[in-house]
């Protein structure tokens, strides 16, 4: 049970219901797909059937949003059982989730909430990662979330928390480069220092996504193309990690499949050895309200028939 044997899957796309028919019919030349675990775990209708079909054709990664590894509630073993059952069926290359908590006292906020980063939360998270890895019988890959506040109770930077966490548990990292940029702007830290100091050998996967710059803060909206500064950070992260499986997330205003794929393929322009020369200035801010951590909610499809 080690992250060392996990493959570099190449450039992948998020599996979205809008693209199901296109993928099944056209079998596009995409390296791999990432499925949101919760959209399929308790689904026994078409979405799960489609996922099974796509998993026969492409490598799949299961990416979760509800493990709540940082919650002070007990681990939800009903959730883990359902997750493990889906994993047995789909055989993903790995299972990932976020360094966050989604709720406490049995409530689920369906948000990826930030943790105070200190010794107590580190030990709490490490203990739970070990339990999850033992239960799933495979390493867990955890993603740095986009954050919109910092706690007074934090005593270490996030990159340091991640370094200790991976060292103590053997888990892998899903480095979301856009989240680094968003969190850095919102919480006054240097994204370049962050990328330079994370444990690069623990990074199994990277995420890219679009965000909305609101002037005084940035929201991780996943609803547009990747910002120039994030591409530059990706260039640095690619050089530091030596290159790992990379995926573009797009959850709002999802474009046609070919547009989505083309945006992902831009990553190739930033995989060269060209020196990282710094981050460009951010774009002009928008003042429209944006929602963080958008949810891809599956809607039932219905065929109407005349009365028999």
């Amino acid at each position, binding site marked *: 049970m080690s992250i060392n044997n996990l493959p570099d899957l190449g450039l992948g796309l998020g599996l979205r219901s809008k693209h199901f028919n296109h993928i099944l019919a056209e079998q596009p030349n995409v390296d791999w797909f990432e499925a949101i675990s919760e959209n399929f775990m308790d689904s026994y209708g078409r979405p799960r059937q489609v996922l099974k079909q796509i998993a026969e054709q492409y490598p799949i990664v299961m990416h979760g949003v509800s493990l709540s590894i940082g919650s002070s509630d007990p681990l939800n073993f009903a959730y883990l059982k359902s997750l493990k059952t889906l994993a047995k069926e789909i055989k993903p290359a790995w299972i990932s989730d976020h360094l966050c908590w989604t709720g406490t006292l049995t409530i689920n906020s369906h948000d990826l909430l930030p943790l105070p980063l200190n010794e107590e939360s580190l030990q709490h998270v490490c203990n739970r990662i070990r339990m999850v890895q033992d239960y799933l019988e495979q390493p867990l890959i955890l993603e740095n979330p986009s954050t919109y506040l910092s706690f007074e109770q934090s005593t270490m930077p996030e990159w340091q928390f991640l370094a200790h966490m991976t060292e103590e548990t053997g888990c892998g990292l899903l480095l979301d480069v856009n989240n680094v940029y968003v969190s850095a702007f919102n919480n006054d830290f240097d994204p370049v220092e962050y990328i330079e100091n994370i444990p690069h050998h623990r990074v199994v996967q990277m995420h890219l996504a679009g965000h909305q710059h609101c002037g005084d803060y940035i929201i991780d909206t996943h609803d547009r193309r990747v910002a120039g500064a994030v591409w530059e950070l990706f260039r640095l992260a690619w050089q530091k990690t030596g290159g790992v499986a990379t995926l573009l997330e797009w959850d709002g205003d999802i474009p046609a499949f070919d547009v989505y794929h083309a945006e992902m393929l831009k990553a190739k322009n930033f995989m060269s050895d060209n020196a990282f020369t710094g981050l460009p200035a951010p774009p002009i801010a928008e003042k429209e309200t944006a929602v*963080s951590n958008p949810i891809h909610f599956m809607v039932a499809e*219905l065929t109407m028939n005349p009365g028999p």
Partner: protein
Amino acid sequence: MTPPKAHIPLARVQQWMQYLLLRQGNTLQDHQQHLVPDDNGLLLTDMVKDSKRLSAREHLAIYQRSYTARLRDCMSKQFSALEYALGEDLFRAFADEYLQCHPSTSYNLITLGEKFPAWLEANRPDKDEVVKEDWPDFMIELARFEYAIHIIFEEEAEEDFLPATGDAPEETLQLIPVFHVFAFSFPVRWYYQAFTNKLAPELPAPQESYCAVMRHQYKLSIYDLNRGQYLLLQHLLSGHTIRQAKAQLHNQNTADRSQLESVWPLWKKKWLEAGFFRSRPAGTPIH
């Protein structure tokens, strides 16, 4: 130099933050000085840092806004016809209040709206009036139907079977695994279909209506029924054979035996064509 803040256990930090996410609508005023319910004297600035651009309160507000907007958007997708029927503003008000009363306790978002129809019924605007208006009844029926559609879409059931053909002996016919019938006091199916076809339907007047929703090969289909068909199918769903179901209908004085026998061949033909049935292998129990 600012002294370090006192350590607060993780569980209390999380309960504090969740409280302010879930109770923001009616308690933000009380918490502008940011008292934690069980930590008298603890200020927001003891918990959350100011940044160069935003105050601690503004940082927290980003989470508060997104919590409500995100779940309201899910409700809107799950109850899209209801949102159209109520209008965006009224739907939003109902959804926000519902989410305050029933925050999600499941990782599965499909169940987010599970209690919404019952909540609408309990909180209908005319609940204290002696004479009730019609439109809340329609909204409640529509909400129940929309929620049911999502559940049926995801229902666990056998899919690997062939529908029965016309030559299958009648005593072997049974309804396919995913098959549900609905009875309404409004034309809910008509309204739902008109909405999904973007026909901008008007609110309908009361009118009994019935329909069946079935799933085969992971595709949902919907069929209109009349009252007799609905009752017969209900008996089949409860495990009766066709012969028993017809007898039940007769015993309940809901169908004249000869009339039923005269229309049955047509019903059976159309239902077989629509894929309502599969054949039960000989010797297999009904249930």
